[in-house]
């Protein structure tokens, strides 16, 4: 009997995919198998639309310890026998339906990816995008998502050290919630998510399995659901238990760091629950397994094998233990007051076999299951982009000098620029005692225990620029992330990415994804920052409109000497302030895609450009200047341009600023003050006499520079025609906190 369309829809497989499955299995799958394949072949687990593109990323390097996509997260050698493990992951669709739990379990999932590697999580970051704040639903989602991230992360005791929050109409009803986690391990204690060695025992630890989250991977994350279905989809969003996760995290770290000889592998249970974790572990170890499903501890009675295999109940881990050490592993988990049940055994052969009371209920060949069909689609450049790129910004009226002070206040109060303190003060930023730079600056900086090292961490993506030019936007996301890292004195080392797009089945959406991947790849080559891990979230659409193309870049930088970290604030009076990378005057096209253009002219248009070579030289200059001890602060120019960057440095360091008498904005005031030309960093110097050395270095690195002015003790702020005071700037900058 042919399978019904309804059954295929339930697992999000197409008829053609089903036929391919039958051909490869040489039989029809039963109901349990169909559910398992639906999940494993979903975009969320199988990356069937994105894999060919993701292969374009440069992923290797001297410091890289993991193969792209081979493990739960990427690992990078940071020296001293230690490595950093990192990954960013999305939880967009669940957060749209149930913001608190959607975001909370997003944090839970990414943290498990990190401690599954044997690493101890040391930092969280989150990159958030919402619709506009005039939509009541946006406020509900914003408050729920921030609350969920805090509620989960705070309970775990992992500091949140950075991220971004961006508001724009294309995210109305479809927020993006990307969480990044970073952990540290001794290199020789890294654990693989692998099942191998016949007779090894599969232990399920942590929470009991319930009916929550069934079809999360295949349903929620792998197609576009109409908003009218949100109420019925709500049960597919899991509920988090961070207390359980805290115990799991401590227990798994103790197991990996002290008793790695007891185990073969550790794997977390995420999307598609037991199905994906068992099948992926077996595929990595190229071995089969037998699972006795009645041994899986349940939260409720009467659960079918289908439900048990597809449940996405949170806070569960799979431990693959050597048979002679099962008792010790079990005792370790019991010591942390956690459940630990043997649910199966590693056997040879090509199949993962699921039994219920000895009777086979599913037989899934791991090779077929982990090799879903791949789609190379033909992209098509969206016509509207071409039109927007041609827009002549020079035809708009310039900012009047008399309005410049008010314009700065209006810009600082824009939700996309205003201080995010109202968000990050809801997150623990200091637990573990290593936070050197807290959120609010360019990047978070966290010390690594037992070394002199610190890591700098940031997430970046200017989605408006990626919308206007996905290639440049992808490259700019990397360039800006690297610039932020450099502004803390750290050297950019590696990238993790989260590709948030609409439906890949639409040629224009596919085009933007392909271009963004190419832009990211080129920039990563230029900066020598391989992409070591990542995640793809597609089908981000509402009412048929995709979100802005949003390729989020999470970047890791390394400071060999933590004491050489740099902040963004003007922390002393009398410091000369310089702009590195450009002159003050900027032409009108640098307003392309800027916050100013949208704020003051309700226009999203123009053609963003990036010069990666110039950007790289600029960053090397800043690192060299910091190495020589010339710099007191460094802050990058991004959203809001030069005026916002200088104002932020003033507010952060609680010192005023006076520009030089010859401050010359050139032919257009708006683009000089608020244009968003890439490759610019505002620095303050330790001593007047350092300016000569800075000029010499700039010549050496071929970087243009301009003297902007100097910091002052008073609360005055003067930048060209702008006259204000720190309290006035701060009041505007805290607009989002008065929401």
């Amino acid at each position: 009997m042919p399978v019904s369309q309804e059954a295929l829809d339930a697992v999000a497989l197409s008829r053609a995919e089903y036929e391919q499955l039958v051909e490869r299995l040489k039989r029809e799958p039963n109901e349990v198998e169909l559910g398992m394949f639906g999940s494993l072949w979903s975009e969320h687990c199988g990356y069937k639309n994105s894999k060919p593109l993701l292969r374009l990323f440069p992923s290797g390097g001297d410091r890289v310890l993991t193969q792209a996509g081979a493990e739960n997260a990427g690992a990078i050698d940071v020296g001293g026998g230690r490595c950093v493990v990192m990954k960013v992951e999305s939880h967009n669709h669940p957060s749209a339906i149930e913001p608190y739990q959607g975001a909370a379990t997003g944090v839970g999932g990414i943290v498990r990816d990190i401690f599954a590697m044997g690493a101890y999580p040391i930092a969280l970051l989150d990159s958030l995008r919402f619709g506009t704040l005039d939509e009541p639903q946006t406020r509900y989602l914003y408050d729920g998502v921030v609350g969920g991230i805090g509620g989960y992360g705070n309970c775990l005791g992992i500091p949140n050290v950075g991220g971004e929050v961006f508001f724009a109409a294309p995210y109305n009803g479809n927020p993006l919630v990307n969480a990044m986690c970073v952990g540290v391990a001794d290199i020789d204690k890294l654990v693989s998510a692998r099942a191998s060695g016949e007779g090894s025992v599969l232990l399920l630890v942590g929470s009991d399995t319930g009916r929550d989250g069934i079809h999360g991977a295949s349903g929620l994350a792998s197609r576009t659901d109409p908003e009218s279905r949100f109420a019925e989809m709500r049960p597919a969003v899991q509920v988090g238990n961070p207390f359980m996760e805290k115990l799991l995290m401590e227990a798994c770290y103790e197991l990996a760091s002290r008793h790695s000889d007891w185990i073969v592998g550790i794997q977390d249970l995420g999307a598609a629950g037991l199905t994906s974790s068992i099948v992926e572990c077996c595929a990595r170890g190229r071995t089969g397994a037998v699972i006795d499903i009645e041994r899986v501890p349940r939260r409720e009675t009467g659960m079918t094998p289908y439900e048990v295999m597809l449940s996405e109940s949170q806070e569960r881990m799979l431990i693959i233990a050597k048979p002679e050490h099962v008792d010790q592993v079990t005792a370790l988990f019991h010591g942390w007051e956690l459940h630990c049940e043997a649910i199966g055994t590693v056997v040879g052969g090509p199949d993962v076999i699921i039994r219920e009371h000895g009777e086979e209920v599913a037989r899934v060949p791991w090779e077929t299951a982990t090799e879903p069909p791949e789609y190379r689609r033909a992209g098509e450049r969206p016509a509207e982009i071409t039109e927007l790129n041609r827009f002549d910004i020079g035809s708009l009226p310039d900012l009047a000098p008399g309005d410049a002070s008010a314009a700065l206040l209006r810009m600082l109060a824009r939700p996309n620029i205003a201080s995010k303190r109202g968000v990050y003060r809801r997150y623990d930023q200091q637990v573990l005692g290593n936070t050197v730079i807290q959120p609010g600056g360019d990047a978070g900086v966290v010390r690594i225990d037992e070394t002199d090292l610190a890591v700098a961490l940031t997430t970046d993506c200017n989605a408006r620029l990626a919308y206007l030019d996905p290639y440049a936007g992808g490259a700019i996301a990397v360039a800006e992330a690297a610039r932020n890292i450099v502004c803390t004195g750290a050297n950019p080392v590696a990238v993790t990415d989260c590709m948030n797009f609409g439906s890949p089945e639409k040629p224009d959406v596919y085009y933007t994804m392909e271009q963004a991947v190419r832009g990211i790849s080129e920039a990563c080559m230029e900066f020598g920052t391989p992409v070591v891990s990542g995640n793809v979230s597609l089908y981000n659409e509402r009412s048929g409109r995709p979100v802005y193309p949003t390729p989020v870049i999470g970047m890791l930088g390394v400071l060999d000497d933590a004491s050489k970290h740099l902040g963004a604030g003007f922390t002393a009076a009398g410091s000369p302030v310089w702009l590195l990378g450009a002159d003050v005057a900027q032409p009108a096209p640098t307003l392309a895609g800027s916050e100013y253009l949208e704020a003051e002219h309700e226009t999203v248009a123009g053609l963003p450009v990036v010069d990666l070579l110039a950007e790289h030289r600029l960053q090397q200059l800043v690192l060299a200047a910091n190495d020589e001890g010339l710099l007191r602060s460094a802050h990058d120019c991004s959203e809001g341009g030069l005026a916002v960057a200088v104002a932020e440095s003033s507010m952060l360091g609680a010192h005023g600023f006076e520009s030089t008498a010859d401050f010359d904005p050139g032919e257009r005031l708006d683009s000089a003050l608020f244009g968003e030309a890439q490759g610019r960093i505002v620095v303050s110097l330790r001593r007047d006499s350092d300016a000569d050395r800075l000029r010499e270095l700039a010549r050496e690195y071929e970087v243009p520079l301009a003297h902007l002015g100097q910091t002052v003790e008073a609360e005055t702020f003067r930048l060209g025609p702008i006259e204000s005071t720190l309290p006035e700037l701060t009041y505007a900058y805290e607009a989002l906190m008065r929401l």
Partner: protein
Amino acid sequence: MRFAIVRFPGTWSDRDCYRVLHDVLGQEASILWHRETDLSGYDAVVLPGGFSYGDYLRCGAIARFSPVMDSVVSFAEAGKPVIGICNGFQVLCESHLLPGALILNDSLQFRCEWTHLRRDGGDTPWASAIPAGDVIRIPISHGDGNYFAEPGTLDELERDSRVIFRYCDEHGDVTAEANPNGSQRNIAGIINRRGNVLGMMPHPERAGEDIVGGTDGNRIWTSLIEAGLAAVR
């Protein structure tokens, strides 16, 4: 001195306290699982911050029944020094070693930020090296740090000089704006009648090194360490 740092399921400030006491201040310190009941080898007990049992019930309400707590109560009743930080303060209140309760912040939100505290009140080994009126800068990190007690209890605390720290601005003025959580009378930390038990919401262990933002928190630990040395002399 020998410090016992208690770890309940869900505690997360245990390692931070250990780092400051052991690595920074050179004291002996051990982290004790909550099933431990023998405190005989220790000079002081630290109940650190965190979310014991997830704080799913009232904060500290379950941890209070942990096996270690009978020993902590005896330790305190013997006049030996006990400090409860954040979740530890909540556990001390639940255990009735300190009066009052910590309820939800008046913002209804978690708050993690640097605060200024003014040293008030009378003698305690936990603050003997901090003169009255001094202002120290220490971070908070909690969702339930809003100190509440009956007016009579508050008056008694004031009369007995048992309010040791109050939230204030950088100049030491106790103002409504400087109160981060709605605590009555800006109370951030209190002691028991004997002065050997201190409960405080701010985290002194997070202000133990310049590179993480300051060292004011060490003044609390060194008060006790110096008081201990003086007692020996």
